[in-house]
């Protein structure tokens, strides 16, 4: 059922972080014990959907479907996001300076209409993505793709960029059938943002080379995929996939009774309690929740005091907060979620010390401090952010801190947050692509996000800044991961960010399915990898 805070909206919260919002429900239903064909896979999810145009989509539900319909050059398999695997590109090489990447296309890959996939299609798709200036375009800025021959694509980057292979695995860089989509108004020209008219077509048809094609798309209700007859790779186990809009509550009830092939994407937190043992549950902690404090004394005398941040950090009941998220929850460690490379390891969990908090407050001369705390009034991953905020408030109250909660509609929250005038607030964050890069960029002093807290100096800015510089200078994944750990420790020691907890994405599968695994790669679950239990 829809509660006060479930909101169908997909919104970007941070520079390189998505806040995917659990959506309202739609067609739901009891999973009948009879009827459905074994070759249909039902995917129950709260829709967060705007479009099925790979160049424009930026939402969870769209990504699930897009990943099944559009192959990209590389991909991640299973739950592993360390190493991009070949997909349309059978191999790639990177230059030492991490500026030039050469991809060799697979032979025999065809689009759903039988046309072979060529380098031209790749260049067209990447150019279109950049020129559409959609929400993911910026990750690709500074990259340039050229077709060396029909099977070779060279991508060059202005800056050293070890994440290019990862970007080539994102759903946004799915390769479109150039001939087909240009017939329907697509263009990769500079003016694509206004000249491209293909969205309507792409919302109702698939123009990719993936294992599935679009059968029917009823926005807000269901997206039906059917197996691509001309798929170049291994045929998927299910000939049909119905992705249908269902709120979390119904997903739980439906899964409880599910006997056919059915998976649910949004069951998390308490909703996982009491599920039958026969269901498979796959989780990855890929989201962190953090609170932020404004460092500008003009905004708040309280939040701008670094000692207050320390006191808050000591006041929070981390395991208790984590418990709110149920079995997917994790006690706070670092800003990079545990699912991603560069996350802080076990044993580095933050700890509560109420006495210390009180002492710090006394040292700072803050008696009964009171501060406003904004948060988006939504339910995210099955947990009402209001509940999380209320818990934080309760913990702070134990240390003598008065937090005044201000729930805001998402857009209003974003406006206040971005306006830099909110004294304190909270938001969840997950990554747009499985690398720490973007959050290091935006959350370090001088970054877009840090600026919202007016954080450029003091408040631990020097240490954090240095760690960030080190991170960006690294040209290999391994070096970057090491730098990310350092950066997070610095941020945990002294910064206007208060890490609250981490939480998991979850995929729950009915007893009839196998391989229903949650992936932090961006598309939640690889539909083509879901199998039939024998």
């Amino acid at each position, binding site marked *: 059922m829809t*509660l006060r805070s479930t909101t169908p909206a997909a919104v970007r919260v941070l520079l390189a972080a998505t806040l995917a919002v659990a959506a309202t429900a739609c067609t739901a239903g009891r999973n009948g014990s009879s009827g459905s064909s074994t070759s249909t896979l039902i995917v129950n999810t709260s829709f967060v959907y705007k479009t099925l145009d790979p160049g424009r989509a930026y939402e969870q539900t769209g990504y699930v479907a897009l990943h099944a319909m559009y192959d990209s050059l590389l991909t991640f398999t299973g739950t592993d996001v360390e190493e991009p695997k070949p997909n349309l590109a059978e191999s790639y090489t990177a230059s030492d300076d991490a500026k030039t990447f050469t991809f060799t296309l697979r032979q025999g890959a065809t689009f759903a209409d039988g046309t072979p996939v060529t380098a031209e299609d790749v260049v067209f798709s990447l150019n279109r993505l950049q020129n559409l200036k959609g929400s993911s375009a910026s990750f690709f800025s500074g990259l340039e793709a050229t077709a060396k021959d029909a099977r070779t694509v060279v991508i060059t980057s202005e800056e050293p960029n070890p994440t290019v292979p990862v970007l080539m695995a994102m759903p946004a860089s799915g390769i479109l059938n150039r001939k087909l989509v240009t017939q329907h108004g697509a263009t990769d020209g500079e003016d694509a943002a206004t000249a491209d008219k293909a969205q309507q077509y792409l919302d109702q048809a698939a123009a990719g080379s993936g294992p599935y094609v679009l059968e029917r798309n009823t926005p807000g209700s269901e997206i039906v995929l059917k197996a691509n007859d001309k798929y170049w790779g291994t045929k998927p186990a299910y000939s049909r996939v119905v992705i249908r809009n269902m709120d979390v509550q119904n997903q739980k009830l439906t899964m409880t009774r599910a006997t056919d092939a059915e998976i649910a994407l949004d069951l998390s937190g308490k909703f996982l309690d009491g599920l039958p043992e026969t269901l498979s549950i796959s989780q990855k902690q890929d989201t962190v929740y953090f609170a932020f404090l404004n460092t500008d004394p003009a905004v708040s005398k309280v939040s701008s005091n670094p000692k207050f941040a320390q006191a808050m950090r000591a006041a929070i009941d981390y395991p208790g907060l984590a418990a709110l998220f149920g079995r997917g929850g994790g006690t706070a460690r670092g800003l990079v979620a545990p699912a991603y490379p560069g996350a802080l390891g076990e044993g580095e969990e933050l700890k509560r010390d109420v006495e210390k908090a009180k002492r710090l407050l006394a040292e700072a001369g803050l008696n009964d401090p009171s501060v406003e705390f904004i948060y988006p009034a939504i339910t995210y991953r099955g947990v009402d952010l209001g509940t999380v905020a209320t818990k934080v408030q*309760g913990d702070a109250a134990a240390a003598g801190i008065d937090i005044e909660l201000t729930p805001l509609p998402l857009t209003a929250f974003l406006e206040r947050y971005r306006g830099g005038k909110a004294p304190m607030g909270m938001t969840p964050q997950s990554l747009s692509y499985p690398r720490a890069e973007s959050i290091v960029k935006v959350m370090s002093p001088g970054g877009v996000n840090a600026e919202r807290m007016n954080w450029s100096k003091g408040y631990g800015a020097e240490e954090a800044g240095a760690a960030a510089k080190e991170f960006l200078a690294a040209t290999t994944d391994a070096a970057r991961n090491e730098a990310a750990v350092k950066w997070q420790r610095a941020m945990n020691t002294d910064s206007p960010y208060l890490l609250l907890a981490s939480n998991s994405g979850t995929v729950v599968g009915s007893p009839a399915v196998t391989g229903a695994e949650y992936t932090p790669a961006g598309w939640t679950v690889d539909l083509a990898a879901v199998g039939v239990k024998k």
Partner: protein
Amino acid sequence: MRRPLVLIALSVLGAWLLLAVLAGVVSPYDPLAQSADTYAPPSAAHWFGTDELGRDVLSRVVHGARLSIPLALAVVVLALLLGGLLGLIAGYVGRAVDEVIMRLTDLVFAFPQIILAMAVTAAFGPSPANAVLALVIVSWPVYARVIRGAVLGIRGENYLGIARMLGVGPITVLRRDVVPNSVGPAVVLATLELGNAVLLLAGLSFLGLGPRPPAAEWGAMIALGAADISKWWVSVFPGLAILTVVLACNILGDAIRDRFDVGHR
């Protein structure tokens, strides 16, 4: 049978008012105090169980009266004042002024209450004050129409004309002769609308457009409980609270209407 019903309604409402006043004393726990004992079903320690943060549902239901009842009263009183004033003007002045005010009420009526209230709270942000504001905006036309109707009803009464013929000024006539004879139905309506206001407020809160957390508000509590209907006690008890208050208000409103013999709107 009517009389005992009215007595019961009176005592229920009285009990709620008392609970609201004495909430701090009679509720067994701090309504905001969280505990590790989350989602505990009703027991001797927690008669109504606990919610997702381990807060005592009974204490929260009792404290909810402190919010719902005064807010509903505020809605009704403010709407009565605003609607009453406009209705009085429309009915007494008549002609173009009447036409304008009545078309305005038509317009407000054209938007279903909760949808308009939702839009208003969405526009001004969720808060108790804004919820009240939204509900006043959507409910004043009822009073305006009733008062206007009453004024029109007595505009044909000879005593108004006689007073004017005796040299009494129009404003004095309005004050002494028109107002006392036309507010009755609206006041009766207000008692009937009190229950409705409680319902609408709870509805807005249910949608997250009412008082901010962690406030113990009945509608919001039902919403929290509805997140997992297997924990029935979290939503059932606040719902019963709303039901009893609204029912008592409606029974009393009915009784008052019967007593003063004022027709339906």
